[in-house]
């Protein structure tokens, strides 16, 4: 564990989470959520949980974002908050 890298990554993770839930467009929200998942994957690889990081990179950042974009394609991008 390198605590400087850890703190920087965690702060960017919090910023990405706040941006993903507050942005007014669902497609931007999906992309920001992919960035959030990938940064959390970096945090876990840095903490020594390599298998969890691997699964999160493929499944959390990959498949979830693809599902999300598919759902937005089938519904609408509009959101009020």
């Amino acid at each position, binding site marked *: 564990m390198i605590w400087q890298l850890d703190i920087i990554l965690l702060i960017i993770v919090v910023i990405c*989470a706040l941006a*993903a*839930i507050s942005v007014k467009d669902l497609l931007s*929200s999906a992309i920001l959520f992919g960035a*959030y998942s990938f940064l959390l994957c970096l945090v876990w690889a840095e903490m020594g*949980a390599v298998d*969890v990081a691997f699964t999160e990179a493929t499944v*959390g950042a990959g498949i979830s974002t693809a599902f999300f974009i*598919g*759902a937005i394609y089938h519904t609408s991008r509009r959101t009020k908050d």
Partner: protein
Amino acid sequence: MDVMDFIISKYNYWMYIIIMMIGFYAMIAKTNLVKKVLGMNIFQTAIILFFVSIASKRGATIPIIQHGHGEAADIIHTAQYMNPLPHVLMLTAIVVMVSTFGVAIALLILIYRRYNTLEEDEILEILRTEDGK
């Protein structure tokens, strides 16, 4: 000073609480249903962050034993390796997270086909007018 040291040295857990509260706020306060599902995902990843933080130690390496198959096997000190049990539990949690996400997205598409909107207040309004008829 002791209190400040105590707070700063546990930064993983403070960040976990902050991320968890962001997800909880999105689940409760946002009216868009996709934003609510996103908040649920953020909540689950925060819990995974908590478990991974439990498993990590300072000055330890990943739990893979070198020279595991030779006849000159080394003595294993558990302080040198991270605890692999929470990692394995969180692998299952990630798989469950993605399957709940897929089911939630499928339900959202069905809701959109039925009501032609994804906002919670508009859906409630449509339900109320349908009840009034």
